[in-house]
């Protein structure tokens, strides 16, 4: 986060900065070159899933055309090539989030599976009756439901950090919730519904005073911030490849090696064993212990290619550009009469949730789609957030570094059309 702020100070108007050539960046994304309902596609649903650059598509094709084979189990040429590519992607992930070791990066289907892995492997082993799990009021269902399931099974208690009207967590309340019964804290790095960047480094330090491990749901954090798991000192970090310009089915959960080693395996099957007999099975070491069965090899190799792409365009520049775009959009959209922005935290990234007076977000979504603009309309898998802000749903525009000011202007015109239709 501090990196982001520094970059912004140094580049106050990166939108017109020659160092970020957005038109050049857009050429990397073939999906953006199309018309929808007779209008150029304006893709503002990046928080749901981001688009894939040509270089990642090509990497997937090379794998399927030249390298496809099962990994870790063949002495033959193709299996070795596939294994090298797959493990190479793990090394890229390691460097991307600055993990100490590649074996701390477990490949999963996405952040949801990553959180479930920690719930099963850590939660079911170390959390028992009367223990407490802390989450926050702004979590995605994927960081609520697994912990609820655990608490129900173990008769443990789910505690929720409340937030203020801007969508910022109340840290005093968090302090009050932490105690010797707390066994894990699981919070979003960035809220998918509000865009709030949580002060996770500080929150982790406070949990560690009680010896409590912290899981960060990084589904939105990984694509829109620079992430350093050692600097944050988080114990687990879950991310989804398809929200960071890689194919669906790719994702990672990072865990500190000492924690992963003492955890139970997640799924049982091939690859995750050392020896199997009908009397007893011994498990493989990290990361194989958590990767039962044949993984999404092509997708994870694609994630590695997406990381290469992000590094090539400049991570910090991309983050700074997105922030400028969000600031521009926030100014423009909040100036429209009858529009209210939901989530006005001081520290925000990528996400702009809004409602229009007297108009349901689904009607907004339909009208915007007719203008070629893709936004998400609904509860964003965060129903408690909707309830907290007393809205049934919101419309959400979420930005990536390939979006432009012109696209924001198109969004503004389309919202004005919504108001005209419902006039």
């Amino acid at each position, binding site marked *: 986060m501090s990196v982001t702020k520094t970059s912004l100070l140094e580049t106050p108007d990166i939108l017109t900065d020659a160092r970020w050539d957005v038109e050049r960046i857009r050429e990397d994304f073939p999906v953006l070159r199309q018309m929808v309902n007779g209008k150029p596609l304006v893709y503002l649903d990046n928080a749901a899933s981001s688009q894939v650059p040509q270089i990642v598509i090509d990497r997937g094709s090379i794998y399927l055309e030249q390298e496809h084979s099962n990994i870790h189990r063949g002495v033959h040429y193709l299996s070795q090539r596939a294994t090298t590519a797959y493990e190479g992607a793990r090394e890229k992930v390691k460097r991307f989030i600055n993990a100490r070791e590649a074996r701390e990066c477990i490949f999963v289907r996405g952040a949801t599976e990553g959180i479930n892995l920690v719930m099963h492997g850590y939660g079911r082993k170390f959390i028992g009756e009367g223990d407490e799990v802390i989450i926050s009021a702004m979590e995605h269902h994927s960081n609520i439901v697994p912990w609820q399931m655990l608490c129900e099974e173990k008769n443990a208690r789910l505690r929720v950090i409340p937030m203020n009207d801007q969508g910022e967590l109340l840290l005093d309340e968090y302090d009050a919730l932490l105690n010797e019964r707390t066994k894990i804290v699981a919070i979003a790095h960035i809220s998918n519904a509000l865009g709030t960047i949580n002060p996770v480094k500080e929150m982790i330090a406070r949990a560690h005073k009680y010896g409590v491990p912290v899981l960060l749901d990084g589904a939105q954090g990984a694509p829109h911030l620079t992430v350093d798991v050692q600097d944050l000192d988080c114990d687990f970090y879950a991310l989804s490849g398809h929200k960071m310009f890689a194919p669906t089915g790719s994702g990672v959960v990072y865990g500190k090696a000492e924690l992963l080693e003492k955890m139970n395996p997640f799924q049982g099957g091939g690859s995750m064993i050392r020896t199997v007999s009908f009397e007893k099975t011994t498990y493989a070491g990290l990361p194989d212990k958590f990767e039962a069965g044949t993984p999404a090899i092509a997708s994870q190799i694609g994630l590695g290619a997406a990381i290469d792409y992000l590094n090539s365009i400049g991570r910090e520049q991309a983050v700074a550009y997105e922030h400028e775009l969000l600031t521009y959009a926030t100014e423009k959209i909040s100036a429209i009469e009858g529009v209210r922005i939901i989530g006005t935290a001081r520290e925000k990234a990528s996400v702009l949730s809004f409602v229009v007076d007297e108009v*349901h977000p*689904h*009607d907004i979504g*339909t009208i915007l789609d007719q203008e070629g603009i893709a936004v998400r*309309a609904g509860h964003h898998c965060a129903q408690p957030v909707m309830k907290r*802000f007393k809205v049934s749903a919101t419309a959400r525009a979420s930005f990536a570094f390939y979006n432009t000011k012109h696209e924001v202007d198109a969004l503004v015109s389309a919202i004005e059309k919504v108001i005209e239709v*419902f006039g």
Partner: protein
Amino acid sequence: MASPIYELYNEQVIEHSKKPRNYREMDAANRKAEGVNPLCGDHQIIYLQVEDDVIKDISFICIGEDKVKNCAISKSSASMMTRSLKGKTLKDADTLFNGFHEMLTGELNEAAQDKLGHLGVFAGVRKFPERVKCATLPWHTMRAALNNQEVASTEGALDPASSAGG
């Protein structure tokens, strides 16, 4: 030709969504069902008072966290449905249900559509497949109430679409 968006959100649809008719709870109801579309969050309750196979009274409310509560399509569809069904026999209601459903799934010819009367203003919805469930939610909920089911959902085991038109 009008743009599809104005075919969908035509004057009557907008007007009914803003000033829904028969929008009230009904103490005297002897049939009642709750309809939900979990994907978009539309949530309504339909009340009916049925005597001797005739719908003496029908009303609805929307449930939601804010003032708008439900989308314009489901709200106006519920409003116009209550207007169409008041005083009708259960058999008439069934005929209208089938006609309305067929209009939205594109299986209804123009002559048949004429019989639907003012409900024809929803013909534009068929160009928006994602929104068909919004328009049919109150109708499925109404039928669930008449069948003494308490809940209608647009998803899963209770998905009325799976038994629609029958």
